[in-house]
């Protein structure tokens, strides 16, 4: 694909791009129906979605990777309905992405700059990874500090998608003692809408679903107080978990290899954080809807929640101490010492009261 052809592709509508790739209307409608379900829209919305999408101009997307592990991208590549291919080739114009782009070095940076210039005010910026604010040297791209790349790229963006827990909330780089001074994107970019798509990694269909929503409706989905799309993060894993009935009956796996574990009982006692984790894993599942952690026998670690990384042991139940308790002999000794000290003075006082006793005579009954 030469540059001319590439430019031509970028300016196509979604409908034109689909046509070019030989996707027929039936498949397209199927895709729209899938997306409508994903976004918790009524079934009738699929048709509207199809009309809107066909006419939508494919937006330019610039993907920035900072302090991250590429897990989010790995997740994205496993997206289904829409698949990564249909996303990249048909629905968006992914103009810059370290891992996925062919270009490198100056050519790569040139592509980013070109996309920014041509689509000023209209392009989306997806970010994975947190930004080190302790020392800009901790993470740079082409010698430029992450924070500078972010500010420059975000300046003319329509919106920012903070993909993954690191971008959304700081993530593992921000875990105590946060050596790099990692911070979330929303703490740095205040003048643009930021959509948090947390998860370590996020569910791929959730990433693509947010983009699809933006494409179809030209606006970002409704967000909750933590900047997350309500459609995907509205309920806890626990509330939608297929093992929930066992929790209610008080049937728990006590170890990972006991009878309870084999029978698929609730993993609460093994540290499952499902009750405090707002995500769609239990309903959308992973790997094309095959399974999710609890289904495979491991408790939820709460990876899409802010500060999950410092929320105590993964294998400590929520009702258990987050860290080993440090109440011990010292507290007991302090209590005994306090009691003994008070008792010492009490006994002295009582002794003095006794010593001061003057034998009462009849006269002493009168004032």
């Amino acid at each position, binding site marked *: 694909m030469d540059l001319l052809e590439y430019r031509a592709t970028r300016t196509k509508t979604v409908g034109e791009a689909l046509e070019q790739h030989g996707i027929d209307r039936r498949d397209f409608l199927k895709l729209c129906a899938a997306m409508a379900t994903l976004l918790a829209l009524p079934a009738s919305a699929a048709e509207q979605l199809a009309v809107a999408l066909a006419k939508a101009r494919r937006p330019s997307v610039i993907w920035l990777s900072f302090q991250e592990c590429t897990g989010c991208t790995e997740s994205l590549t496993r997206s289904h309905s829409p698949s990564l291919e249909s996303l990249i080739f048909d629905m968006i114009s992914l103009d810059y992405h370290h891992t996925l782009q062919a270009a490198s070095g100056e050519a790569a940076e040139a592509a980013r700059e070109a996309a920014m210039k041509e689509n000023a005010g209209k392009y989306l910026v997806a970010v994975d990874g947190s930004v080190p604010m302790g020392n800009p040297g901790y993470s740079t791209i082409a010698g430029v500090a992450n924070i500078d790349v972010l500010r420059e790229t975000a300046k003319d963006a329509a919106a920012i998608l903070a993909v993954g827990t690191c971008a959304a909330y700081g993530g593992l780089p921000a875990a105590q003692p946060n050596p790099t001074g990692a911070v979330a994107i929303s703490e740095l970019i205040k003048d643009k809408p930021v959509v948090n798509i947390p998860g370590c990694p996020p569910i791929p269909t959730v990433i693509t679903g947010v983009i699809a929503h933006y494409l179809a409706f030209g606006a970002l989905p409704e967000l909750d107080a933590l900047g997350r799309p309500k459609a995907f993060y509205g309920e806890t894993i626990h509330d939608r978990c297929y093992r929930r009935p066992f929790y209610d009956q008080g049937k728990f796996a006590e170890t990972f290899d006991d009878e309870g574990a084999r029978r698929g009982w609730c993993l609460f006692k093994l540290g499952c954080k499902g009750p405090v984790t707002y995500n769609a894993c239990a309903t959308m599942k992973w790997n094309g809807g095959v399974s999710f952690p609890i289904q495979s026998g491991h408790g939820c670690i709460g990876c899409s929640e802010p500060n999950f990384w410092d929320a105590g042991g993964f294998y400590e139940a929520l009702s258990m101490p987050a860290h080993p308790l440090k109440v011990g002999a010292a507290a007991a000794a302090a209590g005994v010492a306090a009691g003994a000290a008070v008792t010492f003075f009490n006994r002295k006082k009582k002794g003095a009261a006794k010593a*001061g*006793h003057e034998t009462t005579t009849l006269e002493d009954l009168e004032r």
Partner: protein
Amino acid sequence: MSASLDKGVRVLKEMIDAPIASYFSSCVHCGICAEACLFYTETGDPKYTPIHKLEPMRRIYQQEYTLLGRLAKMVGLSKSVTDEELAEWQELVYNSCTLCGRCSAVCPVGNDIVYMVRKMREGMSAAGHAPEGIKGAVTRTINIGSPMGVKLPAVKAQMKHIEADTGIAIPLDQEGVEYMVTLSSMEIINFPEYLGAIAKVMRHVGRTWTLSSEAFEATNAGMQIGNSDLARVIVSRVVAGAEKLKVKTVISPECGHAYTALRWEGANLIGRPFTFKVQHIVETLEEFRAAGLLKLEGMETDRLSFHDPCQLARRGGVIQPQRNLMKMVAKDFVEMPDAGYMNWCCGGGGGASSIEEGEELRLEAFKRKKRQLDAVKPDRLVTACANCRIVLEEGLEHYKMNLPVVGLTETIAEHIPDPE
């Protein structure tokens, strides 16, 4: 003339011990003690709630013996106890408490409230806030020898009468006998039949006994006013008398608090165990009955009920013996509701009956006894405490109830056959 607030507080500091600390720390303000107290149930006035009667003592405990209480006092969160307050509490600690111990029997957390009232009275009397009536009784006991001012000649006169009536000699100051019998002044003045009954019983069972010219009076107003020093002076007379006559057992008369003073407080007051046994006359009679020594004849046919004196039953643990004895002589013996361990006080125990200004309240509280009696309507009421007897008679008269009250010992003695 030296009673003062300071003295009262010092005495209370001396009195407060681990049980009291535990009790105050346990109280949850459930108010159940009020439901057990006849001064509350009959007046409906919450100030008569037993635990409330100890409020000044509670504050002294907290301020003196708890770290947080001391701090609270320092920063002014907890106010010191004042003289005015103690004066106000006098009615609560004396007039409206007969030391009957029902509160201690019902407290769900186990607080022995009456144990605390007894100690509270130590402080109250040292602070000069004891009622005049009880002060008078103590003064007469210390100075004359008995709360009613009875002296030995009066006892001797009664002895003579009884000897004439029964033909039995009343032994006085006989050394080495088995029993030393003590009396309450009420029995000397109002119910001399008690002494006659004792004489008959002792002759019937063939046991040796004596009165003591130094220790005929068993009541202890010092204990009622709550002053251990004075109570010790009084109880020491009995101890000295008993030890001088080398008796095995001292028999406490039909008087509840005299029994408590001798049986439970005496050794603690003098600071050493007794060298003799102490029994309430009911216990002595029960021993005779159990040994088959009481060979009685005839039965009372009218309906009889028994009023358990608090200090004998609930506070003294003597509950079944009086029933065993009643059944020997009563065909128609009926129990009042709550009889025995949970019996309601006559309303005049613990020195309350000697408080003149408390009479109206006492009569109000008597409504409880009246209800108990109305429930079974006995023809005669038997009891084993001369003080209960007097208070019951006053109450019955006030409420125009025609119900004779008699002592258990004389009731038993009436069925002792004349010797051949």
